């Protein structure tokens, strides 16, 4: 799990540098500080299980097993990217690995996840779908219709609300009349709010929910409480948060925390961590080089892939 979190972190830090060097454009939403959420949840999934993701999707994508080079190439808008350059950061999907796609529309992934789980129920394929969404999706109609329908149809889905405290500049407590993780009773399903920066806790609680779903016992609603350390997008330089708050949460950084725990428990040594870091660094460098060297798409691609 450390490797995954580290891959997410370094992927984004690297993308940020590339973006600021004008090698990329468009919207870039960083998951930095939230890595434990995707990592813990996806670690509890089987290969072949499905996820739906969000505009802030790099973390989910990497945790579900995507290749960094194809992700980076997509951010660069190159043919070798996951979407051949057509999607960009906000639309990376890796259907083969079960990632049904990032999504530029807040809340929209919820019904899609329910549909994927409905498909699993129909085919009896034993798969579970995890639906990631942000706290600010809590007020959306798509969230409500999807979660209610998931419950009514009793499909194998787990709803994971990643509460990073904000949707853009809007605090989650302003936008949501009640916390998403407290709303289980409104949908006839268990729900809970957990520490989203503790990858072990996330893993453990997600595992319970995923097993439950796989056993046909229905959906669960989990809220992972975490924090968006960076601005909403790479362009966000607004002053709606105080430095103190940010500092407080950086002190709870999920990666540093993992390290502390793992070292204290002597589960890993400094050398182990360093080895992983080195390995990640190599993968990142390779991804960047791959992206840089990849060709741009040509104009004939524009009207391709619209229809089968």
């Amino acid at each position, binding site marked *: 799990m450390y490797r995954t979190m580290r891959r997410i972190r370094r992927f984004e830090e690297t993308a940020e540098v590339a973006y600021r060097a004008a090698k990329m454009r468009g919207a870039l939403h960083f998951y930095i500080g939230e890595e434990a959420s995707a990592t813990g949840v996806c670690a509890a999934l089987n290969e072949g299980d499905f996820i739906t993701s969000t505009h802030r999707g790099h973390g989910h994508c990497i945790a579900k097993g995507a290749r960094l080079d194809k992700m980076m190439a997509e951010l660069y808008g190159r043919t070798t990217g996951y979407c051949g350059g057509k999607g960009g950061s906000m639309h990376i999907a890796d259907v083969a690995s079960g990632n049904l796609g990032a999504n530029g529309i807040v809340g929209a992934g919820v019904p899609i996840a329910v549909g994927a789980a409905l498909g699993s129920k129909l085919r009896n394929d034993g798969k579970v779908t995890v639906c990631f969404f942000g706290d600010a999706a809590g007020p959306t109609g798509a969230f409500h219709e999807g979660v209610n329908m998931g419950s009514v149809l009793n499909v194998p889905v787990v709803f994971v609300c990643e509460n990073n405290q904000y949707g853009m500049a809007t605090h989650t407590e302003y936008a949501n009349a009640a916390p998403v993780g407290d709303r289980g009773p409104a949908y006839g399903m268990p729900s809970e709010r957990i520490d989203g920066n503790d990858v072990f806790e996330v893993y453990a609680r997600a595992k319970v929910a995923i097993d439950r779903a796989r056993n046909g016992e229905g959906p669960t609603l989990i809220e992972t409480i975490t924090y968006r350390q960076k601005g909403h997008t790479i362009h966000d330089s607004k002053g709606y948060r105080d430095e103190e708050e940010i500092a407080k949460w950086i002190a709870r950084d999920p990666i540093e925390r993992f390290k502390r725990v793992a070292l204290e428990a002597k589960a890993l040594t400094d050398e182990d961590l360093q080895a992983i870091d080195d390995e990640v660094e190599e993968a990142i460098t390779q991804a960047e080089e791959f992206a840089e060297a990849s060709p741009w798409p040509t104009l004939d691609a524009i009207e391709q*892939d619209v229809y089968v």
Partner: protein
Amino acid sequence: MAVTSAPDAPAQAATRQIFMSQALHEALDEEMARDPNVFVMGEEVGIWGGAYNVTAGLLEKWGEARIIDTPISEAAIGGAAVGAAVTGCRPVAEFMYSDFMGIAMDQIVNQAAKNRYMFGGAAKLPITYRAPFGAGTGNAAQHTQSLEAWFAHVPGLKVVTCSSPHDAKGLLKSSIREDNVVVFFEHKAIYSMRGPVPEDEYTIPLGLADVKREGSDVSVVTYARQVHYALEAAEQLAGEGIDVEVVDVRTLYPLDVDTILASVNKTNHAVVVYEAARFGGFGAEIASQIQEHGFDDLDAPVLRVAGSHSPIPFSEPLEKGAIPDPERIAAAIRESLQGSR
């Protein structure tokens, strides 16, 4: 009902007269039998049997797993179809009235229509969204709209209509087999129209217009219920010595421009008829294409006969007056021919 020229309808097969609702029902039933990945979801499609009886009996036959009654959640219906399709199912999702698709627009347009493209071709979305549309039932402004122009304008969607039981069945079967997203519009005023439907299985490919009546003086280009009004107008005008060709475009996207242009090349006059509000309606696309590609064939401007610039009113005389009818179509045809005959 005029002759249809569906290319793969067997020439001499036995036919029966059935309702359009029954024809649609058979299409669903047969496709469910053919492919276990096909399932139906929507509001009241099960116990109730569909607002227009199309799915009646399917729940009993196929069970709850494949005939899925949903809560009133159009966005979730639209979106669940996406998730199910991307992972290998072939959903037929019904909106009880196309008017309610406003609630599902994001899922249909931002998700279903774009997923394949955004993912660089790495996903396939074999979805059929069915929806009754059109006026004539006294159901007033929120249950009578004709919104086909919205969907025809969205790259990634195919848009299909039908004017007869025969076409309805053949086109719906093809739509379900499509690996793309199809929005399938059924005009609610003709569900109870009867017509011949072969006993044997057949499909009608998407993207082919059908000349429902041949004629030499003017081409009326239309679809769905208005095909019948156009045919009535044609009968009427035959008595005046005007020979009208009626082209049923059937599929709005992809549009069979060739068939339309061939007709106009013969008649040199075109009248486009549609029930939706005239301004910005789908007929504007048809008219634009005719004048663009058939400019030199035209002896007169392409005229449009279409709905009023208003929501559909409830009161019967107003509702009737708000949409085209054979008289108004005939008047436009006469206007088109004026001067050239």
